[in-house]
């Protein structure tokens, strides 16, 4: 056991030391920095995005770097500070970033295949799920339970529960639940539910569908106790001040069919990358109050 810790310590330290300051690039010239909010195991997530990265790298003819983010907030911070050129944010995270810098620009979003928990199209929901064997039938049955959240900046995993769900039950989460845990990602929240460490979890319906698609769970493994209004899918966001030519190129590459694009969409159980704008997420502004 001790050696595991020591190894972990060693890896962590070496990782820290490896980070070298990169030269700051001029408008869309020498390289593109890409980041995304953590939704599952970050390495897996990076692997899934690899076709997209190679598409952009080849299409723009510049190297594309991927930044590993450990939290929603770090992605927001990176995008606001301009350290990241393009980022995938959640709807809520986008709005948080937008409030800090309105010059950022949401430009695309995924349209997904229909799933058991999510209808086809560009919308998903925040769902409160419990295990199928749980005696819980309604949301009020969960009073005093422990619930898993995702990340303080996650739309479906924190922002919607903190607002829409509290409206539903007429009480704050802290008062209603005995314990809340920020699992860090949707997958971790579902894993906690599967492991029986929590009695319920707030997650994105599309993430549940992906679990079903990947065969991790049966489609009836979870029961939905509460569902939010439809939410627009995670936006692809440009940082402020990114060169317009680059923006156009990126948007074009992502919307035009290609082999890499097809592989990427497949990995995301998505059907299409559609163009979006700020209006698609405006309705969520109230969540941030």
């Amino acid at each position, binding site marked *: *056991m*001790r050696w595991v*810790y*020591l190894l*972990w*310590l060693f890896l*962590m*330290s070496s*990782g*820290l030391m490896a*980070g070298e*300051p*990169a*030269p*700051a690039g001029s408008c869309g010239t020498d390289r593109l*920095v890409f*980041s995304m909010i*953590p939704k599952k195991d970050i390495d897996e997530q990076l692997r899934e995005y690899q076709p997209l990265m190679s598409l952009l790298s080849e299409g723009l003819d510049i190297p594309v*770097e991927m*930044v*590993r*983010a*450990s*939290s*929603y*907030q*770090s992605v927001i*911070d*990176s995008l*606001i*500070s*301009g*350290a*990241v050129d393009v980022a995938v944010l959640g709807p809520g995270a986008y709005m948080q970033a937008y409030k*800090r*810098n309105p010059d950022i620009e949401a430009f695309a979003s995924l349209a997904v295949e229909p799933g058991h928990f999510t209808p086809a199209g560009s919308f998903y929901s925040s769902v409160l799920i419990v295990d199928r064997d749980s005696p819980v039938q309604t949301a009020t049955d969960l009073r005093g339970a422990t619930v*898993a*959240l995702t*990340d*303080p900046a996650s739309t479906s995993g924190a922002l919607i529960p903190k607002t829409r769900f509290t409206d539903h039950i007429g009480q704050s*989460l*802290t008062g209603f639940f005995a*314990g*809340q*845990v*920020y*699992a*860090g990602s949707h997958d*971790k*929240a579902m894993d*906690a539910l599967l492991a029986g*460490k*929590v009695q319920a979890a707030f997650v994105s319906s599309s993430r549940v569908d992906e679990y079903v698609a990947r065969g991790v769970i049966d489609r009836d493994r979870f029961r939905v106790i509460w569902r939010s209004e439809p939410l627009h899918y995670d936006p692809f966001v440009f940082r402020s001040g990114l060169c317009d030519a680059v923006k156009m190129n990126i948007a074009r590459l992502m919307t035009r069919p290609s082999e890499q694009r097809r592989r990427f969409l497949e990995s995301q159980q998505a059907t299409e990358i559609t163009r979006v704008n700020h209006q698609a997420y405006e309705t969520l502004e109230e969540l941030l109050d």
Partner: protein
Amino acid sequence: MNRRAEPSLNVVPQIMILLGIVMVAFIWTLFLVQSAASRDDALQAQRSENSNLALIISESLKQMTDRARAMASLAGDELAGTSSRSARLLTLLAEDPVFNRLSIYEPNGNLRYSSHPDSARTSIGPWLSDLADHTAKHGYTPVLPSRRLDPAMAPGQTAWRLPFLVPEGKPGNGRVDRWILVELDIGYLSGLLQHVNLGYGGFLQILDGEKNEWMRADTLGVMVGGKPVKGLFFASSNRVNSGAGSFELSGKRHQYVYANRSPNNFTVVVAQPEEQILAAALGKQNQQLVLNVLMTLLVAGIVVWLVRTLRQQQLALKALQKSERRNQNLIERLEGEHARTTRAASIDHLSGLYNRRQFLDVAAQALASQRRQRRLSALLFIDLDRFKSINDSLGHHIGDLLLQAVAGRIQHRLGDEDLAGRFGGDEFVVFMGGNRTEVDIEKWVSGLVEHLSAPYQLDGSELNSSPSVGIAISPRDGQSIDDLLRGADAAMYSAKRAGRGQYRFFDQSLNSNSDIEEFHLEQAFADALRERQFVLHYQPQVCLDSMEIVGYETLVRWQHPDYGLLFPDRFIPMAERSGFVVPLGMEVIRLACEQLVEWQQQGLKAHPLAVNVSPIQLSEPGFCDRVRAEMERHGLAQDMLELEVTETAVLDEQAMENLNCLNDAGIRLSLDDFGTGYSGLAHLESVPVGKLKIDRSLISRICNSHDDSPVVSSTIILAKRMNLKVVAEGVETPEQLVHLKVAGCDIAQGYHLSRPIPAADVPHFHATFNRLQETG
């Protein structure tokens, strides 16, 4: 043995139960001790594991602060103005998985630069004033500032970034030139923790110097809105230190370990509910509990079984003992019966004394024992005087009572080593053991005689009796009981001869008293003859045909002035020894003649008188002449005198001559004591006697044993054939009289007819007897 064994048998089950209890107590004590030990072990093991974890995490955090310092050093003074360097820093921050924000503050706490100016803290004044002392103490080390004083976040809000303040300044001048705030993404930390085993319910806390919580996370992720933890205690130190303790949270006791880094102003706490730590041990404990319950039941079962088995065995044993006791009782009873039977066979039932057989047996042993101890022993032969007449006159019942009384008196005087027996009739024997001298023996016998002579109260009537006692002493008189018995018997006869209530030693030398008496008598004999102290008593002889008195036997008595009336057995032997028997014999004949003359003068009917003649007298030359002269001197008819001689007398030639002379002179002769000697009837043919007197011992047998009557009968028949008249003497019972009459006996004399009576009583007796016969 049985009684002693019983208590121990009862104790054994108790010991078994006690052992069982001890065993069960031992099992449970062991269980409790082991449970406590395994609980302590589990807690200790988890403590050391968590302690390692806390130390590693704190070390990791410390390295992160070092990283923060390195990052801060990149942000030079010129940073604020140079956009290219700023962009480089921003990229660095974006790519750094740990830190994503960096701000620079003036020493007064005002913001100089921030990577994210839109959400940066504009002033950190409260933190800086709080940290002044800390910096002075620990120097320019990165520190975790106070959660309470965070200007950006209200207490209770979940922090998502962990701030580290890095002071910078020229080393040595002790002044902080600027403060760099580097913020660590908590998501990164919790992501790391998801692979760390904190155990179920376990969690990790990062606390500031005031023990306020910056972050709480478990394997699921960052925990929100948890109840504040109270009761933590950290040892204070200037260096890194760690320790452990426990606190209560949500009603559960938690064990916690901490790694405290005072220089960096933070503490890592790893806590876990004890019940979770102990869950594994508890499982084993429950298994052990079940096992213990089973073992307890087993022990109890075994003990119960053993006790029951033992109890059954005890019951069986008790039953056995009971039956054994019963058998023992039966055996004892049987032995008792046997002893009684044996005693009955060895005891004379009338007197309760030993019978002859047993006495001889016991006395022989006692004698042997006495001789081994070289002590004197004495054997007493006791015969009651006149018992026969008592028995005859008063009946057997009284006789038996007398015998019993005598036996009781004898027994009463016996010492421990003395024995007494009854040989039959009135014959008693006493064996005197113990350590006695001759004087002691004589004193004892004298006392016994006196005691037995005391009057008896038998069945309401008073009775006087006396014993004659013969004494033989061992070893002087014999070496065996038979010898002693013979001696004592002879001595007893001697005593009997001496009169009633007398005792005699077999050894004459011991008979001191009778010696003196005999001496005196011998001295007085001549005077007695001279002074005519001898008198005659007359016992009538009755003709059995006519039942008339046909004569009297004269019996001499000595009317002694000192000793009173003496019987012939007291002085005849002495007279024979001293030669006085010859003058005494003549004196008796003279007295008989005088009496005949007197009765003739009184006009009474003349009856012949029989006088006993001693053999010595008969063998005297001239005896016949002297008798004839005496007869003639009194002018008596020859047939008025009858001389009784004994068988021994007729063996002498001189005696025969005298007898023939007397017979020729017409004096009648009779043979006395016939049947006791050895002469046969054929021998009598030459003896000129006209009568045969059958000895009293033969007559007495008629009564005691009818078997002997043929002897008397045939004697009578033979005597008749020889033309002899037969006289029976000692007739004491009517049966004897009838028997003699039937057998053809001519004349009888004895107590049954009359005792010897003085001469003065004869006329009256004569008249009365004749009248009696006439009326009867």
